[in-house]
């Protein structure tokens, strides 16, 4: 950093200093730099939000107003025509509600260097997909007399996924304890049941084995390699960040999911804040709506400031409000009043809506400052204005 700029280090935000240094190049002389920096500082001071500014309401307006312009069409192509993702207003509502279950989970998996160049990208991608046993089955024959089941495997599929019949048999053995699982010479699998209800059992078993998890990452239902600039990225439907991060060939720093709940569990509240900001920006950008980041940051901060993710709803942010009347004015007023009466709550009338209710100036903007004057009593004059 330039010598002249050091004294402004605490006075200007880092972004401005960065801009300043980049724009200055090396042309300007020391005194000029100082002059410029001072001017910028003055400009910066002038554009600060003033105390009392109702920034929360401005944010609500800025996000709420363009909401009418967004599409309701739930599905949209996320850059690739093959993948459908919730966008627009429904997605925005989903994010702001901080829903635990979202309608379309999606991940973007970045890969480490040799893998990201596109060689065998198909195979890598397919390997991530959660696969159940039924996908490897070609045919199931049930021998009623011997209560035996013979499963023919799909060789091509096995090869694609790098599986062998032995491996599959091992998995089956593990999850079907107490049954006799064997591999035949022709690579088909044979399962035998015994006991009283052997026949019934074998039919039930037939359905059961179809759903046995074989390989891939649980939760990932669809994979699609996409070329982005110089590298390949795997876009998936379904999300399981925790398990994907365990894989050694992925670039853990850039791999993300759109499931905020998952991020909270894995990385904690600060990461959630970041994720909320990113997801909202993604929706707005997709809809071609221009909103300043500051608003999105404020929403994200409001949702995460208590240390856990709160939705913008009666169960979330609104519930945390200190004022009874403010809560009551939103939704379910009776419940709030009843509870308040038992707890003996005191409404200090600090926020906006209660003061509107009782016809008093709201503590925002010009309603905030109070004036104290000493009234000089004039001698003799008793007139009151």
């Amino acid at each position: 950093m330039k010598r002249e700029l050091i004294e402004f280090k605490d006075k200007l935000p880092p972004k401005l200093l960065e801009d300043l240094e980049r724009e200055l190049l090396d042309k300007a002389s020391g005194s000029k730099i100082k002059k410029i920096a001072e001017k910028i500082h003055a400009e910066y001071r002038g554009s600060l939000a003033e105390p009392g500014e109702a920034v929360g309401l401005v944010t609500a307006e800025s996000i709420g107003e363009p909401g009418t312009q967004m599409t309701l069409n739930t599905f949209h192509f996320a850059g690739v025509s093959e993948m459908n993702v919730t966008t627009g207003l429904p997605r925005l509502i989903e994010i702001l509600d901080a829903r635990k279950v979202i309608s379309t989970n999606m991940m973007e998996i970045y890969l480490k260097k040799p893998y990201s160049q596109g060689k065998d990208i198909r195979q890598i991608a397919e390997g991530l997909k959660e696969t159940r046993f039924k996908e490897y089955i070609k045919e199931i024959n049930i021998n009623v007399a011997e209560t035996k089941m013979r499963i023919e495997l799909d060789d091509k599929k096995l090869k694609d996924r790098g599986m062998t019949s032995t491996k599959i048999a091992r998995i089956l053995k593990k999850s079907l304890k107490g049954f006799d699982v064997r591999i035949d010479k022709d690579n088909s699998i044979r399962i035998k049941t015994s006991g009283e209800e052997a026949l019934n059992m074998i039919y039930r078993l037939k359905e059961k084995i179809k759903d046995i998890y074989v390989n891939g990452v649980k939760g990932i239902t669809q994979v699609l390699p996409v070329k982005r600039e110089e590298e390949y990225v795997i876009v998936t439907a379904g999300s399981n960040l925790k398990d994907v991060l365990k894989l050694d060939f992925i670039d853990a720093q850039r791999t993300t999911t759109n499931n905020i709940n998952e991020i909270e569990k894995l990385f904690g509240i600060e990461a959630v804040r970041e994720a909320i900001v990113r997801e909202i920006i993604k929706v707005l950008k997709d809809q071609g709506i221009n909103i300043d980041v500051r608003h999105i940051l404020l929403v994200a901060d409001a949702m995460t400031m208590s240390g856990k993710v709160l939705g913008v709803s009666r169960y979330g942010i609104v519930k945390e409000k200190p004022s009874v009347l403010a809560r009551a004015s939103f939704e379910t007023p009776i419940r709030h009043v009843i509870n308040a009466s038992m707890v003996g709550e005191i409404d200090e009338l600090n926020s906006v809506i209660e003061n509107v209710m009782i016809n008093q100036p709201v503590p925002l903007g010009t309603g905030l400052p109070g004036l104290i004057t000493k009234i000089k009593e004039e001698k003799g004059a008793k007139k009151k204005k």
Partner: protein
Amino acid sequence: MDPSVSKKVDKIEFGLMSPKFIKEMASAKIVTPELYDKEGYPVDGGLMDVRLGVIDPGLKCKTCGCKLKECPGHFGYIELARPVIHIKFVNVILDLLRCICRGCGNILIPNDKIRKHGAELEKIGQEFGVDEQRKKIKEIIAALKTITKCPHCKEKQMKIRIEKPTTFLEDEKRLSPIEVRSRLERIKREHLPFFGINPKSAQPEWMVLTVLPIPPVTMRPSITLETGERSEDDLTHKLGDIVRINQRLFENINAGAPEIIIEDLWDLLQYHITTFFDNAVAQLPPARHRSGQPLKTITARIKSKEGRIRHNLAGKRTNFSARTVISPDPMLNINEVGVPLVMAMKLTVPERITEWNIEYLKEFVKRGSKEYPGANYIIRPDGRRKKITDETKEQLLEELQPGFIVERHLMDGDISVFNRQPSLHRMSMMCHRVKVLPGLTLRLNPAVCAPYNADFDGDEMNLHIPQTEEARSEAEILMEVQTQLISPRYGLSIIGCNQDAITGNYILTKYLDLPREEAVDLLVAAGVEDFSKLPNKHVVSGKEIFAVLLPNDFNFRGYARHYKEGVDDPDAIVEIKDGKLITGVLDKNNLGHGSGLLLRNLHKQYGAARMVDMLGKIYRLGIEVLLRHGFTMTISDIDLKPEVQEEVKRLLEEADNDVNRMIQEYHEGTLELLPGRDLRETLELRILERLNKTRNDTGELVAKNADKDSHTLIMIDSGAKGNLLNLAQMSACVGQQALRGGRIRRGYEDRTLSCFKKGDLGAASRGFIKHGFKNGLEPYELFFMAMTGRDSLMDTALRTPKSGYLYRRLANAMQDFKVEYDFTVRDAGKRIVQFAYGEDGVDVSKSEGGKINVGHIIRTT
């Protein structure tokens, strides 16, 4: 009013009313269900007792001696013959009963563990609220296995169950409210905090009512019908039922009636009191009028959008306001509003008489209310209002002296607040200067349509006249149009030229050279009076005319809409040096709202007031140009040359062939699959892709061959209205109609319409419209068009309430976040949300697109 009182209400405490409190608060004991005697006078001890307040004009309240509208009303009470459970507290009562010993009333936690769990509970109560706390206490008791036996007195505990709505059963035996109440009484006060009950404000036994407060009559006024009959309020009806049953219960108890009759009456009383509080309890039939419609009782009055809280308390109504249809008037300034004369004579501004303005104000009073500008009322210092009429005028004129207030008619230059619903952002309510005009509509400059989102197809808007000096100065300083130019949403100008104004300035700066006389005429019409900047030539160029409006020291460099990097086109780069427009045409990029970089720079350099003035002139200049130049759109603008028509035809045929080939491949199964898709989906995607390409190709073709000087193209190029896609749809091909993200597939079995063959997957049968609007659509094409049209209509209709609710939630959640004096953002509880607003503390509406323009500062230093 004493002006030194700045805040009257400091805080509001919530709590339960004890029977004693109810009796102390009451001014009458209600003993009879009768309302009026034979003369129609309220019965003493009846529900309309005059001690409860007055609702008839002329009567005086017996309690406070006030008349109608002055008396706030007073509560009464009735003594209930038997206690009754309050429906809103049943869940709490149940929780309490389950957690305390039926014998000794102690909480079912051993003494040695009580402190440990107490702290735990308190923490949960603070963090998650009372509901969670009560849930937790039950869990603790269940975990301690004391639920079957009291750890204090070893009494065996029974299972307590609730039969909704209000019956408690212990081991399948009914617990009477008397028993419930006596158990609740036994709970130790020091144990109450564990249940989230503050013993100072609530005692559990008060949740079982022994005394019922009767709301004042002012809260349930009766109305007199035309026939002279009285119609009572729903609450009065309900209360009448309660009192009647209560009296009967008393009588029966005193007469020693059999238990079963008393029980029945008791239950009936419980039912009436329950429905008095809430007439929508799930298990109870709602109490009804004779006509069959349910009574609106207390809960229904408070709840929901039409309830007391949201409708009456959070929503205020106002006087001194007006509403009518709006119409445009570009000759008004941007910060003006045209007010019809009739409105101006009804709306008034109060002016206080002083020694210095008494003569001036007397003139208004002299003219009276029927002559403009006159006055409608005077207000005496004691607060009495006097209407100015021909009879009273003389007398009032004599009376006038300093200290009186004259409510004079609205005049030019007065402050007003102008609003259009839905008021989605703060620019939906701005302060305008009044300009009284003939006519019957409110008028505004079309440049401010954008912030209000107004058009003139019958829109109505509201006008408010601030009545105090404080309100007026706040409106003027904080809300006037020029202070709202920069949207706090993205930091750019939301007010700018639109439509004709853009076209006009585009034509002016691109094509026109005018004789000096005409140029001066044009500028005068736009409101310019100083022509020293106009070069002294016989013929001046449009650019020179435009530059007259710019300040002499203004420098600017920007790009026009058709700017492409690398293409050398002087018109594409807007260069202003020392207030002279050197090169470039002005279009939407520099003049329009939302982008308007030229406007943003003018605002930055010269301040809001000058920019508004300049914008007004630029706007008028554009319109005046069109007025003189003539501007229209013709059908022939859309015509295509025969060879282009042929080309379009060829493109469409090609597309059709390609689609058919793909369908054939699909049937043969040779179509190459897209990853993750089956054959059918692949086909749909491929066809969609192919047809969209065709539409774009025809669009490009049309754009390439369009007459650049046609008025339609001028509108498109300047960005005033329309785009090339619109043009292509009119002249060449409308294109694929998409429904739910794909081609149209709904309708009959295997086909969309009965005029197609079954299983036809071709372009035409799935909603591709290959004709242009001008040549007309085929019937089936029109039908497809109508389908998508309906779909988008539904989309809009469904979206509005959804986004409205999102907005309400956001606003409710964040309305009390504000920047504090230490520049942190905090909520009403003073908890920090952000250490600096937006991490750098910058107000977006004071920034340039959210940034501080470092480059600009460097260049100008």
